[in-house]
């Protein structure tokens, strides 16, 4: 289950960045609020590093109104394509699993 979650959370991050660029603490907050992140919030950082290595996101440092500078994450065209592909696959997969699960229940 953790594997499934981890793989899926990556796309939740991409989806959040599809709206606008965000800094890490913001991302963590949004994921925690949505209850999608079952693991500790710190586990998001290795994920963000990987997304950056895979060039699905890019980062820029910006000054913050108060406190240390923040690293902002932004979607790349490749990240957007990856997200779009996942959206389609996810919808299919979710429907298929739902169908099987409800069949099993009845």
């Amino acid at each position: 289950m953790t594997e499934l979650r981890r793989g899926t959370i990556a796309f939740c991050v991409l989806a959040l960045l599809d709206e606008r660029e965000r800094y890490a603490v913001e991302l963590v907050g949004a994921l925690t609020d949505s209850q999608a992140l079952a693991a500790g919030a710190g586990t998001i950082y290795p994920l963000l590093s990987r997304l950056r290595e895979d060039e699905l996101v890019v980062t820029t440092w910006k000054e913050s109104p108060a406190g240390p500078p923040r690293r902002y994450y932004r979607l790349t065209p490749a990240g957007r394509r990856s997200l779009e592909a996942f959206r389609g696959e996810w919808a299919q997969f979710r429907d298929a699993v739902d169908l099987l699960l409800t069949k099993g229940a009845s």
Partner: protein
Amino acid sequence: MNAEPTTTSVVRSEPLPATDVLIAEYLDRLRRAAAGLPPAARAELLDDIAAHLAETAGPGADEARTRQVLDELGTPEEIAVAAAAETGVPAGAPARAGGELAYDVGTVLVLLLAGFVVPVLGWIAGVVMLWNGPRWSTREKWAGTLLWPAAILVAGALLLLGHGLAGGVGPMVILLGGLVVLAGLVTAFTILLRAAARRRP
């Protein structure tokens, strides 16, 4: 925790030392838990977590707030495990990706150049590496194998043709033809490298 407040004069609005100690201990645990990561990944993880703490439990945060932030982050060990899983994607140790790149580039270089160092045998070694490479299709393997023979045939034909032609035209034909053959070789080997790169994890 065991430090009793000695005098009331030390009570100030500065962050309590206890919060600094909590954070330092947490980062230290993370440093040890992440010891197995590649150095760059480990350094980045520590930087990211330290920045997160500076942002969420910066100056002014009291001990309760700091504990809450650390609690939300999860244990250092949990984060290190997640980091190991990410750097290892999709299979095995992080060093493997480098090994695969080295194999693909090495194969193409041997195929392209080893024939100059050890005639024929060097080229055969490249062909063997090519056919053992897991990231080329059979078509690409055949193309890679036939490249040099084809180039030599074309070059040979050009030479004969060049000698046959009268006057100053011959050397020109040989030179231009040679450049075309060279460009063809470089293009073909670039295509082989790109094909392998697409299939590398």
